[in-house]
């Protein structure tokens, strides 16, 4: 009995320490308190700093933001407050040092966006009203601090900005309904409620700042559960592909299995179809989208969906999915590769 109490006590203490550390680390970010470390505002704007001091600050910035997932909180902390971020980054740039355009406040968005071709100009007309913005915002449990500083909170219908581009992808998911009609076997309307129930919260973030970079990451377990969307999602994908990414991440948030092998060519590999992991869900969504009836999507959208689904089937599974795995062994040629007709 004593031993059980002892174990319980130690476990409790461990939890307590973990909890306090997590709370303190959050508080540190929330309040921009920099805990005694040097920052640009204090070093350079108040006192006037040497090149060596700026170089040290840049080293920290480089470590956090170049080639890594860059957190706004870290940049703000390094600058000594959000008001000093741009001055710090401009100082770095004037010395010929590389900075991530998305770490400015507001972030510098890529030039030359072709919103007609990505579908962004078309979808916005369907959701840019207060009731629909409220719905999308509420369904994905979004919050101001994760979408302000130029990410679109102040200008939600502007599809050049991350929030508007995210709403476009959510609106496409929602286009086919918010629940499956009774007796229907069409699963396309299921993906919106699935995603909105599974994803705890959507955050807009810089990521590694590359349009050909990381798309999104979902965090689960004993931490702030959330799905972070990055520059690659906002500016590297068209609207249907973004919707596919939301479904992919929703499967992670839903408790789906982690990517569990590494021998596929797409990265983030799932070992096989039957795992019903994020890759299977991603293909299923795109497949149902291709089969959307009634002329509600064009043959171009349907053709793009088919090409993407077949490419993911050929590249994102360590064991190539077969027809038998999907339709059962009674289908003709069950050992042949599955492809989306």
């Amino acid at each position, binding site marked *: 009995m004593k031993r059980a*109490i002892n174990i319980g006590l130690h476990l*409790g203490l461990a939890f*307590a320490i973990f*909890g*306090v*550390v997590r709370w303190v680390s*959050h508080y540190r970010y929330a309040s921009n308190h920099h805990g005694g470390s040097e920052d640009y505002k204090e070093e350079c704007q108040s006192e006037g700093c040497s090149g060596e001091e700026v170089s040290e600050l840049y080293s920290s910035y480089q470590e956090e933001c170049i080639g890594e997932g860059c957190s706004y909180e870290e940049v703000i902390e390094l600058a000594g407050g959000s008001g000093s971020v741009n001055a710090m980054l401009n100082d770095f740039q004037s010395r010929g040092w590389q900075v991530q355009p998305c770490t400015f406040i507001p972030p510098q968005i890529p030039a*030359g966006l*072709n*919103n007609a*071709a*990505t579908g962004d*100009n*078309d*979808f*916005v007309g*369907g959701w*840019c009203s*207060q009731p*629909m*913005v409220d719905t999308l915002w509420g369904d994905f*449990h979004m919050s*101001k601090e994760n979408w302000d500083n130029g990410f679109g909170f102040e*200008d939600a*219908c502007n599809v050049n900005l991350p929030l508007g581009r995210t709403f476009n992808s959510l609106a496409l998911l*929602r286009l086919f309904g*918010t629940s*499956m009609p009774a007796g229907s*076997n069409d*699963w396309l309307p299921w993906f919106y409620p*699935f995603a*909105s129930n599974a994803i705890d919260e959507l955050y807009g973030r810089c990521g590694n700042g590359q349009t050909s*970079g990381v*798309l999104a*990451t979902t965090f689960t377990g*004993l*931490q*702030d559960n959330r799905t972070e969307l990055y520059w*690659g999602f906002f500016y590297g994908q*068209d609207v249907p592909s973004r919707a596919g990414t939301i479904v*992919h991440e929703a499967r992670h948030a839903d408790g789906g299995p982690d990517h569990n092998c590494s021998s596929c060519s*797409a*990265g*983030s590999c799932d070992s096989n179809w039957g795992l019903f992991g994020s890759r*299977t*869900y991603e293909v*299923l969504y795109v497949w149902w989208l291709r*089969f959307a009836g009634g002329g*509600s999507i*064009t043959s*171009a959208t349907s053709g*793009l969906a088919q*090409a993407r689904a077949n*490419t993911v089937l050929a*590249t994102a599974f360590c064991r190539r999915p077969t027809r038998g795995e*999907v*339709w059962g062994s009674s289908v003709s040629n069950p050992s*042949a*590769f599955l*492809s989306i007709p």
Partner: protein
Amino acid sequence: MSEGARHRRMATCIRLALLVAVFGSCQGCGHKDRTPPPAKPVAPAPGISIFADTPAGHDAAAAVQAARKSGPGAEAAYQTSLQKLRSNGPEAVNILVAGYRSTDPTDYGTRALLVEILAELRQPDALPALTAIARTPVPPPVRGRNHLLNPFVEESVIRVIAIRGIGTFAAGDRQAQDTLLELLGSNAAPVGEEAARALWTASAQMEDRARQEAIRARIPAGLRVDPERKLGPIAPRGANRALKAGPEKRTP
């Protein structure tokens, strides 16, 4: 202190510790501002112009816009725009190819759509351009655990669309057949697979039986499948079909 009192005290400590842990994990759940943003309509930005300021250029821009429409009537409007674009003859192909070449290489979505429209024109003049696009090597795969926008995948999608376009000519065009046979040996799996699918489908309509057999013999066994649209998508395994959207479903 009695045994019972000690146990009660321990239990209180553990409860307190768990409370702190839950509080820590929650990371400030209580002080997030959930107020939705104001919906202020803005005029859509026209976006960059990738087509020449000519009648064919205008028709191409209209087809691009129509291709992305959704909702009732979207497909009919898109087909109308395609028909108008086709009426420009070979210039329709030239304008799309020029737009494709001038688009930022990392704008994969735009490039894929332009190739899709080029393929959907079904004009023989498009075959050389589709062949050139399909033959362009894809960059090497980027492996890793992160969910990346992988240039290998995105470029493969573009090649797959071009190959499907070539396939529409392959039943009666020897050059198209030879291109697809060559692409069967691609190192990029999506390219080789799509070439096989296109050849298998086209070969079903070939009148030259010897040629048909020779082509079919070269297609890997795992890809000798007729497209069957009646075999539709399946349900996610174990999914709750009664799910409904709404913020109230969420655990706070």
